[in-house]
């Protein structure tokens, strides 16, 4: 009994640090691959740590016209969303003490989007407002295919527990082979969740500067940066758990698969230009949703390979 309490406390303490470090390295891998694909050399490995440390120890300015409570709350909310999702995820052979629930993770992954909307609209800058409105539109468009494609796996194993989904895949093979359409739809939404091209519309630099982040500075921006780092671990890990059998219960295979996902995302990011907001909206609501729904129908009617 005591041993399990100690191990669960150790899990809750160590998991965030592990997630942060691996996420920082994944983010660096993304930047490095992007630079190399652009024929450049790219930043050194400690870059993300340097960025976060610098921001945390920098002066933080609050705009006078900002709604202060929401302005301060938004970065915390985004951070909480990713943190809770992270603590629900099994990582290779390390299982969380409280079995992760798919629905809970999906809800907490929506939280950062909401936080960005709140932060952007409370900052009092026109760019923040437009960024927020764009983020809202994209959140609406992306949550449907994202949730459906994730739920496909849960419906298949008739349980919403992540551990059960992973275990079932260890038995029957990864979901990506059984539900390729849902996997593709999930990947499209992942690009958006990670704020990558062609869906980086809310903070499109040339159009609306930094969008919702425009008025954030110093440690508040640093908090956003930390949640950005966490999401670079949470979202690939979520994908690997759902569709690639959680790395077959092996931490090394798990991390390698995450890395492959990150590399794929980096490649797609460099090879695409940005969608216009209406184009992205249509694309997600038609193609991504269609793909997700095909596999949803297959899963719920039992018309699948296993």
């Amino acid at each position, binding site marked *: 009994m005591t041993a399990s309490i100690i191990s669960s406390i150790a899990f809750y303490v160590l998991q965030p640090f592990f997630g942060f470090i691996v996420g920082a390295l994944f983010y660096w891998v993304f930047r490095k*691959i992007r*630079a*190399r*694909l652009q*024929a*450049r*050399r790219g930043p050194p490995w400690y870059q993300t740590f340097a960025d976060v440390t610098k921001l945390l120890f920098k002066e933080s300015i609050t705009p006078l016209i900002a709604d202060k409570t929401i302005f301060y709350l938004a970065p915390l909310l985004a951070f909480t969303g990713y943190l809770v999702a992270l603590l629900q995820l099994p990582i290779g052979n390390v299982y969380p003490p409280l079995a992760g629930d798919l629905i809970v993770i999906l809800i907490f992954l929506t939280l950062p989007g909401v936080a960005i909307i709140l932060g952007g609209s409370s900052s009092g800058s026109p760019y923040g407002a437009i960024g927020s409105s764009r983020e809202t539109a994209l959140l609406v468009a992306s949550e449907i295919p994202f949730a459906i494609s994730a739920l496909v796996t849960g419906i298949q194993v008739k349980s919403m527990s992540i551990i059960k989904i992973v275990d079932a895949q260890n038995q029957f093979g990864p979901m990506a082979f059984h539900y390729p359409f849902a996997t593709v739809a999930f990947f499209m939404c992942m690009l958006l969740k990670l704020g990558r091209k062609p869906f980086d519309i809310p903070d499109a630099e040339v159009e609306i500067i930094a969008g919702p982040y425009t008025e954030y500075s110093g440690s508040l921006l640093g908090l956003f940066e930390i949640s950005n780092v966490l999401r670079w671990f949470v979202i690939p890990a979520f994908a690997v758990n759902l569709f690639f059998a959680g790395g077959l219960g092996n931490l090394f295979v798990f991390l390698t698969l995450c890395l492959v996902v990150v590399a794929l995302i980096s490649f797609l990011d*460099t*090879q*695409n230009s940005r969608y216009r907001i209406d184009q992205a909206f249509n694309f997600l609501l038609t193609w991504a949703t269609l793909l997700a729904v095909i596999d949803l129908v297959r899963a719920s009617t039992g018309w699948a390979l296993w």
Partner: protein
Amino acid sequence: MNKQTITESIRGFISPKTLPYPRQPSVPPEGFRGKPEFDLQKCVGCGACAQTCPMGAINVTDGLERSIRVWYGKCSFCGRCQDVCPEEAIRLTSAYELAVFDKNKATADVKIEFESCPSCGRKFFPAPQLKKSFEKMEPILEKRNISNEELRSLDRVCPSCREKPEELSKRKLFLVNFG
């Protein structure tokens, strides 16, 4: 997405095009116009560069000696000074890493001694320029069988001393000889 960008990206992935600049110096091509520098030996202090500089980056200040200073914080590196310099004393080198913390230190200067007037001792004219003009006059003077020394003694006198009666008579005599 398109095929061209993908192939080029992969090519870039294998061999990035970034120059190893801070580790290895990046040498500009021949004829590059970088930091202007004076050749201290060649400069005669005529100030033609300051006259022609389109930016007004070259300053001539006369004190005990003539100091010509090019402030490359104001320089446009056009090379007009190099074009007009009669002695090829100012040259645009290939140095380009000019970042400085104090903008007043971004200068290259040369100090030219003045010739002092033998009768009143006033310093009035850059000595090397006077010397150079004598050298240029020499062939003409030789043709006319006039000694260089005579001209030299006349021209070393400052403008205010030239007004004195004895100097005036000397100059008149010289001009008569000169023809």
